């Protein structure tokens, strides 16, 4: 991290960038927040560790409107989102100075707490320098340990790889943390009977509190005004008034980002109710891959997007029933 901070300091001092978009140390061992740093003094609070899971590329939409360049720290998977935003002309490449930061998997405090670890005072092993196998957690109820892998965010188990897709320079090493099949869960659900599928999603979606965190954090949800926020729209965008509304919101949201979603996993990370929202996105990605050819949003910004293109020989919608 020192190397990163030194380089940032340099770029800020020589005027290459006007501000830095990174993470500020939290007041607990696990809650750093996305933050702007505009002078050397403020950089004291800069941090980059295993809990810096937030994808900063969406903040670049706002930052693109500011005077001068913004230095932004992007992890390998965040660069896919940045690329996608670039493709959609939502961010200005000229306004960004991208430092590709190393990533060896990010941590999920919920997963740590789920193991019964509470009253956390400090956590060691989350620093980015060494590749720690396990975390040592000091709590007021005694010392606890937790394997790094067991505390990783869901998305890190299906890592898109250690390569940054876009950057001005790279600092730090990354590693591919894949240890699961990206579509395994989707396949398991596809194999269920309609009753089981319905029961599964009803159970998950009934937890939705309509906080809109999934939408607001999503780099693909970059509309200035969301259709669900329209006052003329006959929908209760903030009320869980009926089970239909939840399905409507989540299906339509996933549909609106279909073909543009890079599977960055932010929606599932932020959901206060732990709804596996990535399943909707992955279902669309899986279908697109199977029906229209392999496609990874944010990888190649010149490629045709699946929903704005077609071929004459596309599958008919009846394939949904036929393939069983």
């Amino acid at each position, binding site marked *: 991290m020192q190397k990163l901070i030194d380089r940032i300091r340099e770029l800020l001092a020589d005027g290459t960038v006007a501000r830095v978009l990174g993470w500020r140390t939290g007041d607990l061992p696990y809650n750093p927040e996305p933050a702007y740093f505009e002078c050397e003094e403020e950089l004291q609070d800069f941090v980059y560790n295993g809990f810096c899971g937030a994808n900063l590329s969406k903040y670049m939409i706002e930052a693109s409107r500011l005077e001068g360049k913004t230095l932004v720290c992007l992890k390998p998977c965040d660069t896919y989102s940045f690329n996608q935003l670039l493709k959609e002309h939502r961010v200005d490449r000229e306004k960004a100075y991208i430092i590709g930061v190393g990533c060896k998997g990010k941590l999920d405090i919920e997963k740590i707490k789920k193991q019964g670890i509470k009253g956390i005072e400090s956590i060691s092993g989350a620093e980015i320098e060494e590749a720690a196998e396990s975390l040592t957690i000091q709590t007021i109820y005694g010392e606890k340990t937790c394997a790094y892998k067991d505390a990783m965010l869901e998305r890190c188990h299906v890592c898109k790889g250690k390569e940054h897709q876009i950057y001005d320079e790279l600092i730090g090493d990354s590693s591919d943390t894949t240890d699961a099949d990206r579509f395994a869960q989707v396949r398991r659900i596809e194999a269920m009977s309609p*009753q089981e599928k319905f029961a599964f999603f009803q159970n998950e979606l009934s937890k939705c509190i309509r906080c809109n965190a999934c939408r607001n954090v999503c780099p693909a949800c970059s509309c200035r005004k969301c259709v669900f926020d329209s006052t003329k729209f006959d929908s209760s965008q903030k009320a869980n008034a009926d089970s*239909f509304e939840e399905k409507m919101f989540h299906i339509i949201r996933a549909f609106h980002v279909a073909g543009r979603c890079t599977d960055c996993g932010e929606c599932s990370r932020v959901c206060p109710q732990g709804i596996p929202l990535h399943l909707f996105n992955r279902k669309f990605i899986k279908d697109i891959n199977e029906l*229209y050819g392999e496609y990874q949003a944010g990888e190649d910004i010149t490629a045709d997007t699946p929903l704005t293109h077609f071929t004459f020989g596309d599958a008919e919608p009846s394939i949904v029933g036929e393939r069983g």
Partner: protein
Amino acid sequence: MSIEKNEEFRPKIVAFCCNWCSYAGADLAGSSRLTYPADVKIIRVPCSCRVNPMFILRAFEKGADGVIMCGCHPGDCHYSTGNYYARRRMTLLFSMLDFIGVENGRTRVEWVSAAEGVKFSATMNEFVEKIYSLGKNVRLEDLRCRS
């Protein structure tokens, strides 16, 4: 709120028909005295491409038991390519509905040209039959819309 035994189930079916082919096909079916059940309510759209995924969900919300979309045959779109986009969209949407447990038979896409009055009537008869066998839609309706 169960359906009483002696009350016969009458499905509500919404058919989105494109102005240029399928709506004309429905017209032809009518003027040719071909029959199809009155349970089918047609909504005319300028092009099958106009059908927003939200239309399909809204129809289910307000109590439809099945939704069918009809457009020009691929290659015959009045706007050249509209139905190609619609085809991809509907494939993905129907696949998603299937994924969350809405029976696949409740959604359908059929290409009907202005000359295919027979096909229109046959398709609708078949679809209504299918919905009869599936019964009432309870997985994707808004309970508040029940009277």
